[in-house]
């Protein structure tokens, strides 16, 4: 299987998953009460659990062999948390956090 063909399938799967999750409530026609309790429970609490996993996914290749390998991302993540808790501005938090990270790995921790 060529890489490009694989990529098409990967994208198609993402489209399918997005369509299924967005279309899900409309398939059930009814009101919130019609959805099975376990689905409603997962729908409420799974998102934050998944976000935690995704953050780990982002830094999955981190090694602790030297300071430069893990310090930038941890420092930048902490900065994002502090900045966002303080200002609650999504764009600012993302831009500033990314700038801090880029600065740290390009200038500070070579």
């Amino acid at each position, binding site marked *: 299987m060529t890489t490009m063909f694989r990529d098409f399938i990967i994208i198609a799967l993402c489209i399918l*998953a997005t369509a299924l999750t*967005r*279309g899900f409530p409309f398939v059930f026609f009814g009101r919130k009460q019609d959805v099975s309790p376990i689905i409603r429970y997962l729908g409420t609490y*799974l998102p934050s*659990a*998944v*976000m935690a996993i995704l953050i780990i996914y982002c830094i999955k290749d981190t090694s602790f062999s030297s300071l430069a390998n893990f310090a930038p991302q941890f420092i930048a993540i902490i900065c994002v948390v502090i900045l966002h808790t303080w200002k609650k501005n999504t764009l600012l938090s*993302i831009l500033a956090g990314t700038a801090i990270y*880029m600065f740290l*790995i390009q200038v500070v921790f070579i």
Partner: protein
Amino acid sequence: MKREVMIAFERSIPVFLGYIVLGIAYGVLLSQAGYGILWAFFTSLLVYGGSMQFILITFLGTDISFLSVFLTALSVSSRHIFYGLSFVDVFKHMGWRYPYMVYSLTDETYPLLCQDDYEEGVDVKTIRFLIAAFNHSYWILGGVIGNALGNILPFDSTGMDFAMTALFVVILVNQLSGKASKLPAIIGGICGLISLVLFGPSSFLLPALLATVALLCVLQGKVESEVH
């Protein structure tokens, strides 16, 4: 029609900046991964999901299992399951626009559509449709612009992919700032870390997700009884 276009545009302005900037980030990262304008255009058009598309870049070109891709995609998009519930009746009355309204219901479009205060005499269905369509077009525009600029940036863009990490951290902070339990995030974090150690970076996602869902179900009573 003109009045509807103006109202829809005004309402969508808050999303405009966010989607253009984030879209550009997406486009740049995509181009650096080796994928050009057509990829940027069609993924932004057809997938239309910020977190989803950023993760997608990390999947492309690798030999990650299709099952991992699908389950991760479902998990990432799982929060959308509940957005639609508020709009079942509203969208069903929008005729031919219905499928598009369902598909374009993103994190940012949702709150805009929740706004109910419209002046007299305007076609609300048209306005709602246009809000969704405008948001979608800002996103596509950002992705395409970013992709086109991707390889001619005037600065060293090493580390720009941290934008994805920052996005997820921001979303998590938002989710944890409410009254609901922080336990799910802790469960996800622990399952993720253990899974990462046990299975390594390229295979930890699937086990982490499965373990998390299982643990969440087992600890349902504890999770639901915790309110901050």
